[in-house]
């Protein structure tokens, strides 16, 4: 086949999950008159098949892409003209290049595993057809976000994944709390989306196009044209990214989003959707390069979020909440990398994070599944004995996220840390924050593992009675992800280490070279005179130390304050997430509710209702007076007619003539 035949691949990859959505969401409900009767295995099988089909096609296009010339290497599907009015022409065009190809592989690959896992995990739920329909729809939108060749299509996918996230968080919508979590995610994302829209409009005003290749070409050939407004555009787009990727101050929806089914948390709120902001920045990296102010803001917000969420994660007792704050923290790391200009490192961490965080979430799902829905770690403990497979895979995941040497997280996290002092955009104190967060990450991950799998057994009698290792359909994805989490880092071996290991190249940054020009990291940091090897060894030692500390401290106790009684107040603040939700309630939600109550009590009742009722009352009063004229007497009508004729005659002969 020649390349034109291959260019249909992006379209097929995109459309395949949509077909799955159509079958599960429309055809089967019509056949069975509702979602209730669809068999879980059938629905799951259909959904898994279509996303797996996408994955196969993604693999084919990946190898096809590998054979193409690096600079022009892309597969483009032109589907149809989407918009055409005024000067605005937006084609529905999909493109797989080296960056989006990588993301498509992650989405379809991890997506397939999570679909497979869901088939077993959601087996006993009602209306699984609806669940799998939403999941397929999400994959469609995510693929559109990644493959769309212009900002408008990306925005379409961006909104679409937000919608699916809302639908899936609120999957158990009969419980008010869960339905509210969905609403919160949707509304907070709206704030960010406004920023994205403004950024998009500004870009269009400056460049007159929204197509990625054209925009990037214009920015690279003529940077002065856009440089004055680059900061504003980048910051607007970053506001969009903070919403979708849960950065401060818009991160509050992500921890609440954990009330959705666990595989959803793994797919949407860890591996794919929340990384959309990082992808967008990596995609538009020549634009962000133009504004040092915006990059600095991104780096600071990222670092602050990483530290902030990391500290909260220490004090949580819900296993999924720990992972949620950990996700926020890791996303902060990715933005820190973007902010210092290490975009390929951000993409690298995005990839390894997708592996190990999906693994950790699916592992926690397996724990929850085994323990009859128990998520509170204070009521778990010593599960290693009962769940050997889950324990083994989660152990690998936790080592990967903690940055223990030679697991995937080690490579990507270390590269981010070193980039903060080695790149010209870096700042030395951000390095300190990064190292601190890395220590926190190892610590709370160790704590989570200890509280869940080791230490004393605190299971209730009922839970213990029903405990069982998850079926093979759930452990298989865990093992695959564990393999990826363990070995995925070798795609990005740093030069220093690569030289010792026999000239192993940094495969990922080499791969992304045409899209993200790689920057050479000097051997000694420019912002802080530390040798790369020293950073690597130091961060490994810290990671191992804090991981072991986290595991060993929490065998019997749950919180640090149980060991050191002096920090109990701090513990309380952390457990309550710095009272950020309460603060937002106070300054945004409560005033809005007050305004709404005022409008309903005063404006609606008095002004609107008053106008409507007043009009009716006025008409009635006037008509009461006027009805006296209608006497029912024939001759008084005749008299009035005579007067009328006389007036008309007078008017005609005296006034008009």
């Amino acid at each position: 086949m020649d390349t034109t035949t291959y260019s249909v691949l992006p379209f097929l990859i995109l459309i395949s999950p949509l077909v799955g959505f159509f079958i599960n969401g429309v055809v089967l409900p019509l056949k069975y008159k509702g979602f209730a009767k669809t068999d879980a295995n059938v629905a799951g099988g259909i959904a898994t098949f279509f996303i797996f089909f996408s994955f196969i096609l993604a693999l084919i296009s990946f190898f096809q892409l590998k054979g193409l010339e690096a600079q022009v290497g892309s597969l483009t599907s032109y589907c149809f003209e989407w918009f055409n009015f005024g000067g605005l022409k937006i084609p529905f065009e999909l493109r797989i290049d080296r960056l989006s190809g990588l993301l498509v592989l992650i989405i379809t690959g991890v997506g397939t595993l999570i679909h497979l896992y869901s088939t077993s995990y959601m087996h006993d739920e009602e209306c699984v057809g609806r669940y799998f329909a939403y999941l397929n729809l999400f994959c469609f939108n995510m693929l559109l976000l990644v493959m769309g060749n212009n900002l408008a299509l990306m925005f379409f996918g961006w909104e679409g994944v937000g919608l699916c996230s809302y639908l899936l968080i609120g999957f158990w919508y009969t419980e008010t709390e869960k339905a509210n979590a969905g609403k919160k995610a949707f509304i907070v994302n709206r704030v960010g989306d406004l920023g994205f829209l403004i950024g998009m409009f500004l870009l269009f005003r400056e460049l007159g196009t929204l197509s990625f290749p054209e925009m990037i070409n214009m920015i690279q050939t003529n940077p002065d044209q856009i440089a004055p407004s680059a900061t504003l555009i980048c910051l607007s787009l970053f506001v969009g990214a903070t919403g979708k990727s849960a950065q401060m101050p818009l991160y509050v929806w992500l921890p609440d989003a954990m009330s959705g089914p666990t595989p959803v948390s793994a797919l949407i709120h860890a591996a794919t959707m929340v990384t959309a902001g990082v992808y967008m920045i990596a995609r538009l990296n020549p634009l962000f390069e133009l504004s040092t102010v915006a990059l600095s803001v991104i780096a600071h917000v990222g670092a602050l979020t990483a530290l902030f969420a990391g500290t909260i994660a220490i004090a949580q007792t819900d296993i999924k909440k720990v992972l949620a704050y950990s996700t926020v923290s890791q996303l902060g790391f990715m933005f820190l990398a973007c902010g210092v200009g290490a975009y390929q490192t951000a993409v690298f961490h995005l990839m390894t994070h997708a592996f190990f965080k999906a693994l950790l979430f699916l592992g926690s799902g397996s724990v929850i599944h085994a323990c009859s829905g128990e998520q509170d770690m204070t009521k778990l403990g010593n599960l290693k004995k009962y769940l050997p497979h889950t324990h083994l895979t989660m152990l690998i995941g936790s080592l990967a996220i903690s940055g223990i040497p030679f697991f995937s997280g080690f490579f990507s996290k270390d590269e981010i840390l070193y980039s903060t002092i080695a790149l010209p955009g870096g700042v030395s104190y951000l390095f300190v924050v990064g190292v601190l967060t890395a220590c926190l990450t190892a610590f709370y991950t160790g704590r989570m593992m200890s509280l869940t799998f080791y230490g004393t057994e605190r299971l209730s009698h009922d839970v213990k009675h029903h405990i069982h290792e998850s079926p093979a359909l759930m452990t298989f994805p865990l093992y695959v992800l564990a393999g990826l989490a363990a070995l995925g880092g070798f795609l990005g071996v740093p030069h220093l280490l690569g030289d010792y290991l026999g000239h192993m190249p940094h495969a990922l940054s080499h791969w992304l070279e045409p899209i993200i020009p790689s920057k050479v990291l000097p051997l000694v940091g420019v912002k802080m005179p530390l040798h790369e090897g020293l950073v690597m060894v130091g961060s490994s030692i810290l990671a191992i130390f804090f991981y072991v500390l986290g595991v060993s401290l929490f065998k019997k106790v749950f919180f640090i304050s149980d060991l050191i009684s002096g920090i109990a107040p701090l513990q309380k603040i952390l457990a309550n997430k710095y009272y950020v939700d309460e603060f937002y309630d106070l300054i945004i939600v409560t005033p809005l509710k007050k305004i709404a109550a005022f409008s309903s009590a005063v404006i609606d009742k008095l002004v609107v209702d008053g106008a409507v009722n007043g009009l009716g009352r006025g008409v009635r009063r006037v008509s009461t007076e006027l009805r006296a004229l209608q006497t029912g007497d024939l001759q008084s009508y005749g008299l009035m007619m005579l007067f009328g004729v006389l007036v008309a005659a007078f008017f005609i002969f005296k006034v008009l003539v």
Partner: protein
Amino acid sequence: MTNDMFIQILAAFLFTMGLLVVLLRRDTIMILMGIELLLNAANLSLVGFSNSSHMIEGQLQVFFIITIAAAESAIGLSILVNLYRNFGSIKTQSATTLKG
């Protein structure tokens, strides 16, 4: 006073009489007769103008009016019969059920 002028004044007088009868008499038969008087006053006026301006159309018109007046009084009388059946009276003040 010319002959033409006299005819028009007579027609106006008859018209006024008819109008007064229609508006003031309570008896429906008298009202119908008043309407006939109005029509014939108009006829007289038309004939007078036709004669003075030497145009035949006015007299032609009168024939139509006489025909229509005959039809009108037939309908009027049938309404009157129905009025009597429903209200037991042919006085206008008894038929005031449409009073608002």
